[in-house]
């Protein structure tokens, strides 16, 4: 008697679990019964900006970036990225004023160009990949941070800019801008063009200037 009761009870439990699993499987494949929303908002133009930039040099850089986030309590999480980025350098002519050009005798010009800048940096998504992602083994309760990769990418952009500056992108941007302008004005009959040195944007300043 007991054997039969046990058999029917176990069978009922197994069948109930099987039916439940099948139900959830079915719901998962058809969308879980949740309201389906199609994300199709209109494109919003955030900003339109007039640009007066002359891009004169492009660097393509590859860099391995390790990013570690220390958790507030204990442990840390790491991501290792191999990043390929393009850095564009040139001159921003929005800072150029009429008094920066002085006309001399005998078809000569003295031009003071704005300082060369890194005008744009972007990551080449196709050649950028995550190599590794780990967290401290003794903090298994700490969840992976979904923003970590994005933060690593932003850090990579900064690192790439610094690397480009160290490799001389600003000097190349200045040289190329001068030769481009010289060639352009040469076609208009200007025989002598002198460029007044403009210092590249540097970060250190004196305390007085900072205020």
């Amino acid at each position, binding site marked *: 008697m007991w054997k039969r009761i046990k058999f029917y009870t176990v069978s009922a439990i197994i069948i109930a679990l099987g039916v439940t699993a099948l139900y959830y499987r079915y719901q998962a494949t058809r969308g879980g019964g949740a309201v389906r929303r199609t994300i199709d908002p209109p494109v919003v133009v955030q900003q339109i900006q007039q640009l007066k930039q002359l891009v004169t040099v492009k660097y393509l850089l590859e*860099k391995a970036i390790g990013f570690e986030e220390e958790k*507030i309590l204990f442990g840390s999480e790491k991501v290792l990225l191999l990043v390929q980025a393009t850095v564009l350098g040139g001159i921003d002519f929005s800072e150029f004023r009429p008094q920066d050009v002085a006309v001399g005798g005998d078809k000569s010009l003295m031009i003071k160009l704005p300082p060369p800048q890194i005008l744009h940096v972007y990551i080449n998504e196709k050649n950028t990949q995550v190599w590794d992602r780990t967290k401290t083994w003794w903090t298994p309760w700490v969840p992976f941070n979904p923003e970590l990769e994005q933060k690593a990418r932003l850090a990579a952009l900064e690192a790439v800019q*610094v*690397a480009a500056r*160290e490799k001389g992108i600003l000097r190349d941007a200045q040289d190329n801008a001068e030769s481009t302008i010289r060639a352009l004005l040469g076609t208009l009959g200007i025989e002598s063009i002198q460029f007044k040195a403009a210092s590249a944007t540097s970060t250190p300043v004196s305390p007085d200037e900072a205020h």
Partner: protein
Amino acid sequence: MKSGVKTVMGGVAAAVAASLALIAWLRIEEARQFSQPRRVATDGGTNYVIQLIETDVGKSDSGYVLIVYARLENPNPYDVVLRRDWFALADQAKDHLLPTTNGAQTTLIRLPASSVLEREMFSFDLPPSTLAGIVEMKIGENFWVTIKNEKQFTRALRTGEFVSFRSRDW
């Protein structure tokens, strides 16, 4: 004898647990102080609220890269424009460093009326000496906040390696 061992073990476990709890509390408190909102009013009447979120430190060939993330809030019913170079850094030698301006980091930071910028980024190229001691960030005309303690940053980073902190204790 057995109960004596048990008592000692229990005491040790309690001491370890208490120490861990204290460390956790200190770290949470430190993080809370680091990221507390600060209301800034300039002499010109501009006012805004800034809340530091985290600092990322990375190694470059010639020094360090420091990135500070902050939440900026404009509680005013009118637009506020902040100059990025207001947010300078000062190290223990009183050297001032301006944030880099290029790409998405525009010279002017526009805060529309009653709006919030959740993650504004300020990045700096630092010479190695900057991280030898305390580092402060200017968040308004006469307002400075400490973003790094007075100890030398001794962590050995390789070029291209970044570490992220949500406190001043690094």
